[in-house]
């Protein structure tokens, strides 16, 4: 698969469209709870497919730069995001943080699922932020 600027932007837009549509559908359309996990799996696979297409629509130098930014971004995320939270936030505060999550049902505040979601959200959030910080630094240095 060769470099194509147009295919890159179309695939990237498709990832955002698929994820945004699904989140909107779950929150506004209120589908039956039984189908939500399976449909989520399909949506994630679809989004991953488009992301894969977008990644391989870049040329090799752009892919190298993206991978480098992801690596340094991950390092930044661990040292300045995840590690301070793990080391400094006590377990007693975790429930308050979980309660602050959007749509957190009060009955499920103690459920392991909520803490798992919190862990995933924090990790992805800091990884994405670190990635963008690394890209900005790389852009400024070039």
């Amino acid at each position, binding site marked *: 698969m060769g470099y194509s600027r147009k295919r890159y932007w179309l695939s990237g837009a498709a990832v955002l469209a698929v994820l945004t549509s699904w989140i909107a559908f779950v929150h506004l359309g209120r589908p039956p709870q039984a189908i939500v996990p399976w449909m989520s799996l399909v949506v994630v696979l679809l989004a991953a497919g488009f992301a894969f297409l977008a990644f391989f629509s*870049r*040329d090799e*130098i*752009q892919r190298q730069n993206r991978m480098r930014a992801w690596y340094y971004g991950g390092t930044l995320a661990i040292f300045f995001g995840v590690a301070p939270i793990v080391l400094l936030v006590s377990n007693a505060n975790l429930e308050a943080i979980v309660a602050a999550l959007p749509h957190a049902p009060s009955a499920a505040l103690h459920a392991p699922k909520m803490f798992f979601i919190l862990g995933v959200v924090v990790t992805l959030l800091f990884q994405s932020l670190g990635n963008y910080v690394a890209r900005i630094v790389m852009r400024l240095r070039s």
Partner: protein
Amino acid sequence: MKNRIKVLRAERDWSQAELAEKLNIARQSLNAIENGKADPSLPLGMRIAKVFGVQVEEVFS
């Protein structure tokens, strides 16, 4: 890694955009290679030499 892409390009009066299009890469990527900020893979290096019609050793050192 040093290269002579800029010289070879100037000899043929090609712009970066023209050469990037021939190589099917982004102009920014070609600029990074040309200025030694990125190293191309062997297949891309061979492609660059082929586009110029020279041996790969004449482009990269």
